[in-house]
């Protein structure tokens, strides 16, 4: 474990920006966003809890050119860019775990997605643990924690004005080995703080039996009830670090085939050419979203497809809270059984 004094971190990031493209959370308007660190710009690290836009955008950009059309030979050609080596600093463990979950989608045995993989291979992710989890955070409920290592190359824990860094591989060891090492006492102290922060978080909803419960109430009125106020916009899905659905379109004027984020909450998402829509109302679409995250992800890789970042709770225009929706599902099942 290494120690960096708080007032040295900005210089460290600036030094690193000579070798990599370094991105760190900085203030934009009223929120924070990952922006590139550059020596010409003053760097003020944002201390707001989490960026509004999730860092999945570094690996699955909202709009990404996949292929270019060569009119001379009337052929689509590969356009797989290999980005410059880059470093993401200050990624919260929930977002990092989400990136690791998305690896299971994009890097499968049968089909390897070169766009995702190239960006992953070119990126070092340094996490920042959460000393003061928000009331909308629920990472511990879904198998994560405010100091989880999944998806991270290193994790920083801030204690008493100093940053304690745990490195998990050679890449980050190299980056930090010029800093002083923490003593055994200090290490123990940091781990204690991590554990106590983690255990201080409440359970937002029961996950044992959640999948079976949702599977059982698939046809019930529960979905109509919880989706009645849903607007059907894309805020929850676009800001979600584990949502990955995309659309592929041809942009004729720029001779490109592009992939764009898409959302199962839009009506035309599964609209078929014949006019039939398997998910015609908000009920089916909300059901698809929740079932995908809390049931189908479990079928695919044995993990819940949600890392508890809380963005959907904070930014839903009508105040829908996924934690309350899932708690209600249990009551619904009990009600159905008792009737």
């Amino acid at each position, binding site marked *: 474990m290494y120690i960096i004094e708080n007032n040295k971190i900005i210089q460290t990031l600036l030094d690193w920006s000579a070798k990599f493209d370094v991105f760190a959370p900085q203030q*934009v*308007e*009223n*929120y924070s966003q990952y922006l590139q660190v550059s020596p010409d710009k003053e760097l003020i690290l944002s201390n*707001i*809890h989490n960026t*509004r*836009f999730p860092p999945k955008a570094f690996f699955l950009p*909202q*709009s990404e050119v996949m292929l270019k059309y060569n009119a001379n030979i009337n052929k689509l050609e590969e356009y797989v860019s290999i980005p410059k080596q880059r470093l993401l600093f200050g990624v919260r463990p929930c977002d990092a775990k989400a990136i690791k979950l998305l690896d299971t989608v994009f890097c499968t045995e049968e089909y390897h997605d070169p766009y995702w993989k190239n960006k992953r291979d070119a990126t070092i992710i340094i996490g920042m643990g959460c000393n003061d989890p*928000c*009331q*909308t955070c629920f990472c511990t409920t879904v198998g994560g924690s405010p100091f989880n290592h999944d998806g991270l190359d290193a994790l920083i824990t801030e204690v008493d004005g100093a940053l304690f860094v745990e490195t998990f591989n050679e890449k980050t060891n190299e980056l930090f080995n010029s800093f002083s090492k923490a003593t055994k006492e200090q290490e123990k102290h940091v781990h204690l703080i991590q554990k106590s922060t983690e255990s201080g978080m409440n359970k937002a909803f029961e996950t044992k039996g959640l999948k079976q419960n949702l599977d059982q109430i698939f046809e019930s009125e529960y979905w109509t009830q919880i989706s*009645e*106020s849903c*607007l*059907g*916009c*894309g*805020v929850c899905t*676009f*800001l979600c670090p584990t949502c990955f659905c995309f*659309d592929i*379109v041809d*942009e004729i004027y720029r001779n490109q085939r*592009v992939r*764009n984020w898409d*959302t199962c909450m*839009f*009506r*035309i998402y599964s609209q078929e050419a014949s006019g039939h829509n398997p998910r015609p109302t908000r009920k089916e679409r909300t059901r698809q979203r929740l079932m995908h995250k809390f049931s189908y992800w479990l079928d695919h890789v044995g993990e819940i497809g949600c890392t508890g970042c809380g963005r959907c*709770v*904070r*930014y*839903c*225009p*009508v*105040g*829908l*809270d996924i*934690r*309350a929706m899932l708690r209600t599902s249990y009551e619904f099942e009990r009600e159905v059984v008792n009737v």
Partner: protein
Amino acid sequence: MLDIKTKLQNEISRLLDENLVDVFIAFKKENSPLRPQPAFFRNTKELAELEYNGLCQNNLANYLPKYPKETRIGMVVRGCESRSVNALIVEKQHPRQNLYLVGIPCSGIIDLKKIINKVGEEVTSFSEVEEIVSVIHKGQEIKFNRRELLHDSCLCCIYPSPVNADIMLADPLPEGDPALIRKEVESFQNMNRNERYAWFRQEAERCIRCYACREACPMCYCSECFVDHGTPRWSESTVTPAGTHAWHIIRAFHQTGRCTSCGACERACPMDIKMTYLTNKLNYDMYDMYEFVSGMDEKIQPPFASFNMDDKKRFVL
């Protein structure tokens, strides 16, 4: 406000007991702090969840087109909301006889984002008494004057009282000063063309095309929005300045004479984009050129949706 809430609860109770409505649309208590939600009451037992305060930020008229026309809907309406209801009635989105409107004159919607910007993210509780709002952030109580926290649209609101309520739960509030909105519009209009474009570009740059603005707006109820058209493709779905600019501008134009300046679009936006400056300008032009204010009457068509034989025909060659 508590007084109003109790009156509201009693009225909804009466409507449900006497089977005068099939569903009553209002707000219910928050699941996460400071975020009361739209609610759809169908029996009086559910009324324990009823909420009504300055944080009830959604325009409930948005839900009207989602119900079949035979559904008898009761709903709470404030100022801009009541005008949105009228605008929807004009466009035949729900028959007036199947609506029961409970009017509450509005002292303005509190912008949750303003609270967060002033005190921080972890606000755990909220209360308001008359003009004083107090919030608790990290255990500390902080008080504000209500006006400091109002959403920008509410700061220049001219019509705070419902225009079409079947019953009013409080005395109407006086109309606002039209100079307020004129000042807003002129401050945008008086920028030169480059400045205006720079401002528009700066705001639109953050857009992530989530369409929360569209879905939160009561007047955006088209079953197929122009952005979803494939042939012709009016606006690309790829997030580029061209596509995003087209989205914002065309949506504003589609709102002309229909928008009631409720600001629900801005409140819904997750990227804090300003957009009412566009619709305010267009609405102001409607007033200036045609003396038309959206939603004041449930029968009068907006100028751009109607045709009259006396219309000037300068554009006809």
